[in-house]
């Protein structure tokens, strides 16, 4: 996983900037978002219009499946939790790539603290996340994944096919959209972010 710019007192910094001048805080937020925007834009370029195999057959259908026989219609078990989850709609995936300023996800830090992301670019669409990560993970994590397909080999087939037609890329072969973009321009974006933070810190330090 790529390293992020760690600002332990980020909240204090924002608060201090706001106390100095509320406009300063707003500018800070805008600058951060602007610094992250190229990464999101680059990631969006890696969203394919369709996902097909070498014979042109869809791996990701563009529309949700329709059922005609009663056994399929009435089968509620073999269903995805969301019909659009396994549907490839590039517009929705692109829309799902966005810059987030807050997150509820926490990573343990030290003995009694947690680290949370203050700025991140996310690939939030389910289909986008599936496409991004397919082929990753350990054998143990795959076993934990629940499959509702009638095809017992569906998971393995999908993973193998995806790996074949679109290999994982990125610094440590960890993704196809966001992580690919991050491998290309992550360092420059982080440098820019660091510059934005350092500039405000300097401003804050001078003010006290």
């Amino acid at each position: 996983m790529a390293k992020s710019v760690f600002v332990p007192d980020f909240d204090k910094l924002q608060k201090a900037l706001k106390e100095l001048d509320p406009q300063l805080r707003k500018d800070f937020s805008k600058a951060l978002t602007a610094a992250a925007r190229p990464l999101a834009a680059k990631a969006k370029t890696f969203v394919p219009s369709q996902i097909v195999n070498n014979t042109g057959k869809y791996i990701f259908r563009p529309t949700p499946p329709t059922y005609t026989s009663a056994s399929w219609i009435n089968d509620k078990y073999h269903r995805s939790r969301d019909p659009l989850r396994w549907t490839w709609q590039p517009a929705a995936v692109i829309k799902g790539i966005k810059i987030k300023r807050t997150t509820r996800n926490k990573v343990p830090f030290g003995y009694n603290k947690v680290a949370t992301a203050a700025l991140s670019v996310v690939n939030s669409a389910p289909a986008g996340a599936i496409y991004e990560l397919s082929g990753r993970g350990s054998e143990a994590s795959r076993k934990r994944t629940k499959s509702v397909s009638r095809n017992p080999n569906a998971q393995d087939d999908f993973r193998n096919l995806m790996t074949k037609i679109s290999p994982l890329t990125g610094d440590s072969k960890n993704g196809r959209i966001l992580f690919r973009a991050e491998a290309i321009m992550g360092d420059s974006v982080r440098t820019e972010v660091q510059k934005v933070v350092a500039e405000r810190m300097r401003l804050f330090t001078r003010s006290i």
Partner: protein
Amino acid sequence: MAPRTEVAVDLVTKLKDKGFKDLQKNAKGSEKAIAALGKKLGTVFGAAALAKFAKDSVKAFIDDERAAKSLTRAIGNLGLAFEDARVKKFISDLEKTSGVTDDSLRPAFQKLIQTTGSVTKSQELLKLALDLSADGSVDLVTAASDLSRAYVGSTKGLKKYSLGLSDAELKGKSFAEIQKLLSERFSGQNAARLETYQGKLDLLNVSFANFKETIGKDLITALERVSSDQGIGGTTTAIDKLGKEIGDAIVGTGELIRIIKELDVSKFKNIIDDINLLSFTNPYGLLNDVIRGLGNEVKTAPKPFSVGMSVTGATDFYDKIERARKKAEEEAARRAAKIEADRIKREKQAQAEKKRTAEIERLKSAIQFRFDIDAINLQAALRRNISASDRERVLQLSALKISDYQNDEEAIKTLQAATQGRYDDAMNLEKMYQLLTVAGFANSKAAIDALAASKPQIKFTDNLDDVINKLKALIEGKYSISIGATITVPPIPAPGNSTTGIGPGSTFNPGGVRKGDESSGGALVPPPVIVKPPGVLLPGEIGGEPFGVQPKPFVPDTGNFRYFDEMESSYLRLVNDLTNVPANFDPARFRMSENTDSSYLALLNDATSVPSNFDPARFRMGENGVTVNVTVQGSLLSQQDLVAAVTDAVYQTQRTGNPITLAV
């Protein structure tokens, strides 16, 4: 903490200690709440909350009492009823120091004591179980169950503790060893847990649980007194009803307190003065003290003895308990020893069974290999005149086939030898023996073993002729004879004449150099002393059989006569001993001398006359061998084909299990 559920690249990370602060706040809040609980009971809680608390307290007490009685019964059933008080005290003390409530400690202890039968051992194991369960991955009862199962030899449950041992290794260890290992890995875990906020909260929880149990017990005592001789009876099972009654009682008490508070204290001043309690200005405080005093009196009032007192006194009583305790501990130790002995017995049986299975498998493989048609074909193919590359392939295929019938270690050696093109003695010692036997070099296993120890430079890819030539060279080199002294013998004089020369006497009489049986008084000439270099053996001596060449009978050379040692094993002696014919004796070249006038030496050169007393049936190569007649059909193109045909026939015969003696 919720796991991360979105695909994201974090660019800025900040630190958040909110969770930590929340925890601190909760801990402080709990401490304060408990410290001020008594006060809050009367002032903060409403009637409903009080009723609920009372119900919970009574339920906690009832559960606690039930668990305690269950443990008491279990201990009693084991014949350790006298240990009940000691166990109760141990549980109570451990609860305060470990931060684990007796609700968990009791069932855990019960499991352990039912298995071990020893209070001391169970206490020891319960502490270990506390350490095992300290990280929260397993609960205390599970840890105690795992330990009690391990005590009787079932180590399956210990896998979850990641001891770094395989199932077989765990099974092979005694419980004492397992306990030591666990102690080394987990010792002090529970103490470390108590240093954390969670641990401190647990300690507070224990206090709170005990507080509830005490309140519950006192409430039940109060209700028992209120209902006098009828007792609370069935209401103990109807907690809801009991709770309502308690709630009503508390509400009533509150109402009473309220009324007292509203009373004009000055009206009762005289009464208060009379009872000399002027220091109490608050009538509620006074009432509270009076009520508490009454309660304490009720609780500490002496109760009638339920069992009769012994007249022998306390000393006898404690001596009796001590004796019983000692007896129980001895019994538990005996049981532990028996469990360990059973485990060792099972282990030995398993090992013996494994050994038996391996031996059966090995024998089966050996027999199956002998009759494996592919292996036979491959061996036969190796005897054919094939190209070097084909030979290498066949040899490797042969190695593959052989490895099918070997265990893993042997198979690795064989396959390594095949891969590296090396003729490995582990694989081919037996084959070497066969080759040498076929080639006529040896029929002694000891000799072949000696050859193998000399590590001949034979490669895996050598063909049969190469192997034979190399071994031949080796044998010839090893057993070449070199005599360090030269003996000069003068020409044999004509009969009746004499000559002088070196040797034992000045006169050489060839008539005297004869065997005693044909001599009429002629004495044997003592042999000259032959100085042999160390390590050189003469023919006929032990280990001195001439391997390098086919054995040949002694051919006398009258022109250069030689002396030989007249030893037990020498040829000259053996020739006349019809009961002990040397294996390498060639009757076609050697004949017995009749007791005629002809000299012995003269007869030796007469190849045309066979003595009448010569019995060829007694002159055979070997004594217990099987004669194998090899009929070669078709034409033989080369010497190799002949050797191959003979070798195949010999192998086929050897598979029948009969020994083979080669007659060329």
